C-alpha cells in the first residue's frame, strides 16, 4: 500500500480557480475523506491524484515517487466513479477482467482473480450477466470489484453512494468500510455527505471554495472545528457572535450580548484563536450539549418552536434577541409548547470558541 502526498497543489481552469495550495499527507492504509459542498474542489483534487488532470502547480507523490504528470494508466489506481462508468457492452465478468487483461495476465489467473473479486462483493454467479440487467446496488459492487481486482496501490472513490437509495447506501457504506479494513488499502473517498464521512473515515479533509478548511479525525472535526464553516457544515451548531471579557485562569468569561455572560474553558477553543480580552469571537454550541434546568451558564428563555422526532425533542428558544436550537433526549417527560418559559444551562466544556472573523 502506498502513501499519497500532495505538495502545494493548485489547479486552475482557464481563469476559474479549481483548488488552491492543497497540502496533504495521506498515510499508507488510511481511509481519507475529502468532504465539502459541491464545487469545493474535492473532485478536482481526486482527479489530479488519479491523473485525469495535471496540477497547474505543485507535486503529487505516491510514496516517494513523483507522479505529478504520470498518465492515469501508469498509476496503478482503482477508481470507482459516481455513475460507476461500467462498460455497457461487456458482461460483469468482462468488466472486472478488463484491468487484468490490460496487464496481460494469463487467462487462468484472470478467471481465478475475477471469481475471487466477485465473491468479495457477493456477486458470485453473476459473471455472465449484462450490466443493464443489474440493479443500481449490484452495478455499484461490480464497479468496486473492477477497481479492487487489479490490486491497486490506492483506491479512489468519487461519491460512490450518491446514486443509491437510503437503505442500500447504508449497507454499501458498511461493505466498503469492511473491504477497506480487510484489504488494508489506502483509500481516498470523496463525498458531500458528512454522515458518510464521519462514519467511515480515519481522517477527513473539509474543503470549501477550493481551499482546505481543516484536516483531522472525525472527532477533531466535530468537536474542535477551526472555523465557522466547518462548525456549521459538520453537524448542527448554534453559532453566536461574542467577545471575550476576561480571562480567569483556565476559564474565559464571554459576553454574548443581551446581557448574557457565559463562562467557558480556554482550552476548548480553536488552535487558530488567540485568547485575549476584548477579542471578538464566535461561539459554537451544539444543540445536544445544552441541558434543561439550572446549572452552570444558566439561561432563561421562551420556547418559539417545538419539534418532536421520537428520539428527541428539538426546541428553538429565544434568549434575549438570540435564537438557540436545543436538542433534548425524549425521556417521556412533558413537552413544552410555544410561549412556555424554559430554563437551560450550558456545561462549560460545551462552549467552543473560534476566531470571530472566520
Amino acid at each position: 500500500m502506498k502513501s499519497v502526498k500532495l505538495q502545494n497543489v493548485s489547479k486552475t481552469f482557464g481563469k476559474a480557480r479549481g483548488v488552491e495550495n492543497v497540502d496533504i499527507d495521506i498515510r499508507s492504509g488510511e481511509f481519507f475523506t475529502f468532504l465539502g459542498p459541491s464545487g469545493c474542489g474535492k473532485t478536482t483534487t481526486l482527479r489530479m491524484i488519479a491523473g485525469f488532470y495535471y496540477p497547474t502547480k505543485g507535486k503529487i507523490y505516491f510514496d516517494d515517487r513523483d507522479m505529478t504528470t504520470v498518465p492515469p494508466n501508469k498509476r496503478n489506481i482503482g477508481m470507482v466513479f459516481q455513475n460507476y462508468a461500467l462498460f455497457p457492452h461487456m458482461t460483469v465478468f468482462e468488466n472486472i477482467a478488463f484491468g487484468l487483461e490490460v496487464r496481460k495476465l494469463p487467462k487462468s489467473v484472470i478467471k481465478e482473480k475475477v471469481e475471487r473479486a466477485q465473491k468479495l462483493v457477493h456477486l458470485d454467479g453473476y459473471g455472465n450477466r449484462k450490466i443493464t440487467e443489474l440493479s443500481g446496488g449490484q452495478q455499484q459492487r461490480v464497479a468496486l470489484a473492477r477497481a479492487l481486482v487489479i490490486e491497486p496501490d490506492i483506491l479512489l472513490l468519487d461519491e460512490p453512494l450518491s446514486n443509491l437509495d437510503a437503505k442500500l447506501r447504508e449497507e454499501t457504506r458498511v461493505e466498503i468500510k469492511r473491504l477497506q479494513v480487510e484489504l488494508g488499502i489506502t483509500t481516498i473517498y470523496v463525498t458531500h455527505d458528512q454522515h458518510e464521512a464521519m462514519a467511515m473515515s480515519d481522517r477527513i479533509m473539509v474543503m470549501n471554495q477550493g481551499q482546505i478548511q481543516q484536516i483531522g479525525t472525525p472527532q477533531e472535526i466535530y468537536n474542535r472545528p477551526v472555523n465557522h464553516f466547518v462548525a456549521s457544515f459538520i453537524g448542527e451548531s448554534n453559532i453566536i457572535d461574542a467577545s471575550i471579557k476576561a480571562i480567569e485562569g483556565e476559564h474565559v468569561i464571554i459576553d454574548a450580548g443581551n446581557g448574557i455572560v457565559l463562562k467557558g474553558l480556554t482550552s476548548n477553543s480553536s488552535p487558530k484563536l488567540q485568547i485575549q480580552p476584548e477579542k471578538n469571537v464566535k461561539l459554537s454550541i451544539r444543540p445536544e450539549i445544552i441541558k434543561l434546568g439550572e446549572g452552570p451558564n444558566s439561561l432563561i428563555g421562551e420556547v418559539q418552536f417545538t419539534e418532536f422526532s421520537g428520539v428527541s425533542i428539538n426546541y428553538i428558544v429565544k434568549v434575549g434577541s438570540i435564537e438557540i436550537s436545543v436538542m433534548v433526549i425524549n425521556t417521556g417527560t412533558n413537552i413544552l409548547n410555544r410561549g412556555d418559559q424554559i430554563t437551560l444551562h450550558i456545561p462549560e466544556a460545551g462552549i467552543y470558541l473560534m476566531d470571530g472573523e472566520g
Partner: protein
Amino acid sequence: MNANETNSYRVSPWSKLTQSKYFVYILISPLFFILLGYVIYPLYKTFVQSVVDKEGNFTFANYLKFFDTMTTTANIEALWNSVYISVISVITCAIVGVTMAFLLERYDFPGRKILSVLVLVPMALPPLIGALSFTFLYGESGIFPRFFQKLFGLSEVPFALEGIFGVIVVHTFTMYTYFYLSAQAAIKGLDPSLEEAATSLGAGRIRIWRKVILPMLTPAMIASSLLVFMISMASYTAPLMFGVDRTMTMQIYLSRTNGNLDMAATQSTILSIVSIAFLIIMKWYQNRRNYQNQSKGIGVHRTEVRGPLMKYLSMFFSILGTIILLLPILVIILISFSVDGRWTVQIIPTEYTLQHYIDLFTDSRTWKPIWNSIQMSTVAVIGNIIFGVAAAYAMVRMNFKGKNLLDILIMIPWALPGTVVAVNLIAAFSEPSVFSFNQVLIGTFWILPLAYFVRQLPLVFRNTSASLMQMDHSVEEAARGLGATWWYSFRRVILPMTASGILAGTLLAFVQGLGEFVASILIYNVSTMPLSVAIWQKLYAFQFGTACAYGVLQILLILIVLIVSEKLNNGSGATM
C-alpha cells in the same frame, strides 16, 4: 525526492509524445490537411478560375457578364428561378409537412398507423428515381394524363406536370419529410398540459395557437425552412427531368458541357457563396436559442375523430394519402417489368418480362455500373469512417484551438450542391497537385470516390459524434484508470460502444454513394460509369424497363439500410 527515482520510472518516447499538450495538434493536423486538400483547395481553385483570365490577369469580367442583362438574361433568370423555386418549395413543404405532423400526432382516425409509416416513403427514393416516377405518373406522356385523355376522349392530355411547376411538386414530395420530422419532434415535445394551462387561464383555441403552440414550433420551422431552401437551391435532378434549364445548377452543367469553363466556375462560386451563407445562418440560428420543454414524461393525448361523416372523410383521405405515397414506388416496380421500347402511347405498358432483373446479375454490361458503384462507394466509405471517427473524436473529446473552424470546414461539403463539388474537384485535380500525389485525377477511377467521400463526410461525422456524445466521459476514464493505454481503451471501449452509431451513418453514406448522381454526371468516364448515370442513359435510350430495374434495386438497398440502421440505433439507445 531524487532524480534517480523519477528516471527509474520508464517513460517511453511514445508516451512522452502522447502526454505533450501539443500532441492533440499532431492528431488533428491530418484532419485539417484533408479538409484543406479536398474541400478548401478545390473551392479556391474554382474561385481562381472565375477571376483569372486566359492571360493570367485578375479580372471580374466573368462576374460582370453574369449580372449583365444586356447580352444574356440566362444567368440572372437562373438565379431568380432557383430562388423562386426554393422559396415556393419551402412554403409547400412546410404546409404539407406540418399538417401531416399535426394530423398524425394529435388525431386518431382510421388508417393513422399505416399512414404514419408511409409518410416517410419519400426518404427511400433516390432523387433521380423520385423525379423519374413523377414524370411516369403525371408527366406529359404519364399514366394519369393519358388515362384522363382516353377517358374523356380528348385530343390532348388534359393536364401534365411540367416546367417549374413540376419541379416544385417533386420538391414538395421529396422534401416535406424534413418539415414533417422536425414538426413531429416539436409536437411530441409539446406538453399538453401547457395547452390545458392556457385553457384554464381562459384562452380560446385561436389564442392558444397564436401564443403557445406556434411560438414553440418556430425554431423547428425556421431550421427546416433553411434546410429545405438549401437543398432546393442545390437541386439538380428535378430541373433536369422537367427540362428547366434556367436554374443555377442546370446553368453550371450546361456551361460545363459547352466548354465555357470560366462561366461554370463563376456560377459555381456564386452558388457556393449563397450555400455557405445559408450554412452559417443555420449554425448561428441553432446556437441562438432553443425552446426546451421543462416537463418530462409527456403523455400523448390524441383527439379521436368522431361522427360518421368525419370518419368516412378521414378514411377517404387516409386511403388517398396512402395511394399518393405509394404510387411512385409502385410505378417504378411496374415499369421495371416492362419490355424496353414498347411503351409509347398506351396508358400503362402492355408487354412484361422478367428479363431486366435477370440481366442485372447475369449480363456483364448491365452489371458493370452496379459493380462500379459498389466499388467506388466502398472506397469512399472506408475513407469516411477513418476520417469521420477521427474528426468526431477530436471534436467531442479534445480541446484545441481551431475547433470551431474544423466544425465549419466539415459541414461545408454538406452545404455545397453536388454540382459545385464536382466543378471544384475538376478545377483542382485536372492538373497534378500535392493533394493528388502529383497525379491528374480527372478521368481516373479515383475522382468519383473522392467526390463521394467529400459529399458523405458530414453525414458520417455527424452520426459518429452523436454516438460519441451519448457516451459518458467517465467510462473512458475508468478504462484509463484500470491501466489501459489510450489506444487500448479506444479499441476496447470507445469503438465497441459507438460501433452501432458509426455503422448506421456509414451504411447511409454507402447507399447515398450508390445513388449519387448530381456530381457523378459531371466527372464519370465510360469505364467508371456509376449506377445512377447508367439509369439516366438508359432513360435517354428509351430503355425504361432496365432503368427502373436499376431503380428498384436502389430502393431495396435503401430500405434495407433504413431498417438496419433503425435497429442499430434502437440497440445503442439502451446504454445503461
